[in-house]
């Protein structure tokens, strides 16, 4: 894998771990991971009132027989205007625990897919030379056929120059290596990773899952 930097200088080559960057593509696993990611970020703050919560009395509106009207016990049943909602939504948590092995495999597949498409670029250092957004925009345009690029930095806090240069650009997003996830990779068609980031990801994939 060719290593470069923002100047398009050739910084040599690096070897990517095959069991992380070259796994068979399994669409169904990536589908499950993406569905899980989107589900767990749902707010779930929808609420309706059941008949016990609708304000109003529970008194029988009029006598059972003799009025000529339909029989009713309450004026707040679901058939009524201002009445209750039957089986309506209540606030709930949509998250669930996807098996950790599936989550890990999904990340590997997403990375392998980008490698297979040729859309993974390795940079030795992801710090741009200037903080100007114009330079960054020009660089992204220079990449060609790239609608959105995800830049992955190795450090815990992404360096400020990079943040400043990309913050106002729709086409570029920056995350630290520990924030790398399948949905983000799929949202962006190109991936730029620093060597540190690649090392971190490979180490994380090689440590056994904590049970």
């Amino acid at each position, binding site marked *: *894998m*060719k290593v*470069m930097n923002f100047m*398009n200088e*050739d910084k040599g080559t690096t070897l990517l771990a095959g069991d992380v960057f*070259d796994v068979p*593509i399994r*669409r*169904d696993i*990536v*589908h*499950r991971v*993406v569905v899980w990611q989107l589900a767990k970020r749902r707010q779930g703050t929808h609420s309706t009132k059941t008949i016990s919560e609708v304000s109003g009395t529970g008194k029988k509106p009029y006598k059972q027989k003799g009025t000529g009207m339909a029989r009713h016990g309450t004026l707040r049943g679901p058939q009524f205007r201002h009445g209750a909602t039957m089986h309506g939504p209540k606030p709930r948590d949509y998250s669930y625990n996807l098996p950790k092995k599936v989550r890990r495999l999904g990340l590997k*597949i*997403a990375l392998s*897919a*980008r*490698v*297979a*498409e*040729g*859309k993974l*670029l390795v940079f030795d250092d992801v710090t741009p030379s200037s903080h100007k957004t114009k330079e960054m925009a020009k660089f992204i345009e*220079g*990449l*060609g*056929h*790239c609608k959105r690029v995800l830049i992955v930095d190795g450090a815990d806090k992404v360096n400020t120059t990079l943040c400043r240069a990309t913050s106002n650009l729709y086409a570029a997003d920056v995350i630290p290596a520990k924030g790398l996830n399948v*949905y983000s990779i*799929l*949202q962006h*068609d*190109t991936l730029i990773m620093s060597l540190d980031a690649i090392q971190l990801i490979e180490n994380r994939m090689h440590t056994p899952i904590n049970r």
Partner: protein
Amino acid sequence: MRAWLQRKACETMAAYTKRQMQMRPVSCIAEGPTPYPAPTSLGRSSPTGLKLLALNNLRDNKGATKEKRRLGRGIGSGRGKTCGRGHKGQKARGRNPRLGFEGGQTPLRIRLPRRGFHNPFSLTFKPLNLKSVTESVDMGVLDPNDLITMKTLKDAGLVGKQIKDGVKLLGSGANQFSLPLHFEVSRVSKKAKAAVEAAGGSVTRVHYTKLGLKALTNPEWFAKKGRLLPRAARPTPKMARQVDEVGRLPAPMSRPQAAESAPQASETQES
């Protein structure tokens, strides 16, 4: 709509073909990775359009999800109106009688006689046939040179994951049995014992309690808990008549006196 039509009318043939060429998906993505992307242009294999993995081409496997049964949603669904409950009655109104109730008639479970008693001292042995032993030795799962204890059998997967009270060696496949193997199991059938000894091996019936079996097959559990391995327990007088010797802990690797294994086998045969 009108703007679109006007645009279409103004397009020349050349422009139309150019637009078609751009829209045609490039399908050479899956033909192996392009290892070195050129610095100024990405993904020579797939400039635009079809991607190997994108948010719009994800789907789960066929059969992974099954549609829910939704009752009472119209005639066309096949489960409208009565929702599969038929007409009227107790069952239609969501009140079912308890399981086993037969409308007042004496239920089957009362009509039939009770039988037997439960013996709390009974022992359950896992069966092991000589046929399985020969097969696993042939496949290389079981080593014919080692002593075959209940631990080796469990590790080889011949008696499952739970050995209840021990293993009994049975004689299915005794006619084809010809390996000189030495067994240490809980019980053995007459036919199996004869076949093993005819082949030049030996069978010793050993006694293990349930705790002893745990220490035999899973000594790591004791180490993890910080406990010592228990001592091998002696059998009760009644059990002692059914076994030859007390099982040894930790798991033995070979018969105690290797040189005297043949006379020892004949001793146990006599006793």
